[in-house]
């Protein structure tokens, strides 16, 4: 379970340019739940995700992972429990490294990077069978650099990479924003499938209202740095897209 307590963050504090990005936000995310955070630009949803990922530290408040305080833990240490899918598919994978090398890194995300060669025949086989579930004919292109794949393919690969090593929490930062509608749907379904199969906790930030119609567990709406709405599964079942649109009026 991941929990944020009284999180407060403002940029340029104490100057006329001060922006209060998050104001005393409290949320508990249950283990094995798929959470959707929606909000307009500037609502604080991305800041919240960055605080969970460790790329921003809050001015006040705590981040607890299974009761352990990880508020000031840097990204590379937090990565032992947390994986992140970036909005821009080019950020989540290393473009000049081959597909195989990207997966090698993903497979040792929680371990030390030793000066020994870890890519061998058996590893190659594991990756090939892993990427074959995408049905994108990638298993024959393991040696190609990541930059030779499309945005949709790279985003799908980053999802697989995220779950290639131990994982408690999956953070999805508008993962479909840079994709065409067909790839976006594929990524959403793949994310749901992976999270359910591995019983992961997932937190996804989006401004696409139609994502609320996917079978997610909980919808949270952010507004002006505060948690505006918190919709549980029962309540969510009776919501229509136009109801959700009305939240933003």
């Amino acid at each position, binding site marked *: 379970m991941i929990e944020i307590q009284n999180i407060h963050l403002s940029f340029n504090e104490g100057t006329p340019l001060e922006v209060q990005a998050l104001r005393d936000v409290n949320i508990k995310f249950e283990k094995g739940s798929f959470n959707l955070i929606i909000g307009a630009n500037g609502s604080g949803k991305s800041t919240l995700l960055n605080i969970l990922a460790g790329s921003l530290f809050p001015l006040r408040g705590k981040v607890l992972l299974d009761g352990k305080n990880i508020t000031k833990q840097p990204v590379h240490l937090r990565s032992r429990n947390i994986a992140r899918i970036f909005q821009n598919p080019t950020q*989540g994978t*290393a*473009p000049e490294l081959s597909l195989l090398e990207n997966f090698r890194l993903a497979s040792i*995300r929680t*371990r030390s*990077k030793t*000066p020994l*060669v*870890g890519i061998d025949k058996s590893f190659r086989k594991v990756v090939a069978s892993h990427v074959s579930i995408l049905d994108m004919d990638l298993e024959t292109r393991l040696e190609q650099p990541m930059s030779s794949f499309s945005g949709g393919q790279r985003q799908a690969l980053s999802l697989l990479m995220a779950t290639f090593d131990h994982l408690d929490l999956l953070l999805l930062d508008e993962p479909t924003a840079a994709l065409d509608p067909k790839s976006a749907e594929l990524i959403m379904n793949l994310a749901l499938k992976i999270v359910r199969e591995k019983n992961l906790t997932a937190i996804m930030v989006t401004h696409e209202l139609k994502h609320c119609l996917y079978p997610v567990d909980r919808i949270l709406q952010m507004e002006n740095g505060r948690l505006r709405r918190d919709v549980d599964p029962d309540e969510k079942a009776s919501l229509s897209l136009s109801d959700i649109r009305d939240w933003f009026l």
Partner: protein
Amino acid sequence: MNFYLSALILGLALGAMGWGIYLSLRIFNIPDITTDGSYTLGAAISAVHLAGGGSWLSASILAIIGGALAGTLTGLIHTKLKVNALLAGILIMTAAYSVNLSLMQRSNIPLLQTSNMFNSLSFFKSPILNSLLILIPVLLLLGSLLVYMLKSDFGIAMRATGNAPLMAASMGIPVNTMKIIGLAIANGLTALSGSWVAQYQNFADINMGIGIVIFGLGAVMIGETIMDLFGKRGIIFRILGVIIGCLVFRFVIALSLASGLDPNWLKAVTALLVLVFVSIPRFRGKTLAL
């Protein structure tokens, strides 16, 4: 003939520095100016050590340590104080000048009477062949180590750090530490070249490093351009390409001098040659970021 054989040895001896530049420039995306300072540092440390009766092996090792320290400092300034990498390198390069001068106590140390790596073997009659006999195996060993390192898990993490820093951090890689280690290795290699060249030329000079970074950048790019022409992009070919780049560059310089070029214009010719190789990919419709 000896003139060109000598260019061959110098080109090979500069190969270690070329690899250093390859690491900092291509793996970490940092054009590392520390090179000018750490190259002379390697020469200065070795000269003082050899003049004091030390062996060439310990001189080489001490040079690597000195260069690695300089690289570590540049890395620390860049990552901890958030100073632009180019400026951090210039700072250490400038400071290294004083360090080198105080190490050497004068601007030039002659090494005519000392034993060194290049006169350590007497297998052939020709001293140049003996020099090659030791230099080539040492380079092969060093190059193989580099290829292995870059293909290892640690090396993949290094390459990801320069290529996609956000992704690298989210894969559990401490990117700042990785950059510091990378710059330490790069400058260790550069200092090794400085040590070798001082041993080969039988002197260390306080000004021998001026503009050497340009030679390294040029060699890396010449090597890449040549390997690209043959469609060879693997790490082995990159590492090999750097050596070829160093040799081509050194031979062009030797030819220019042999054809009667005023030595005062040597640095200008060097810069021009690098400019030509930087612009080749543009003319071929490709972009290559420096």
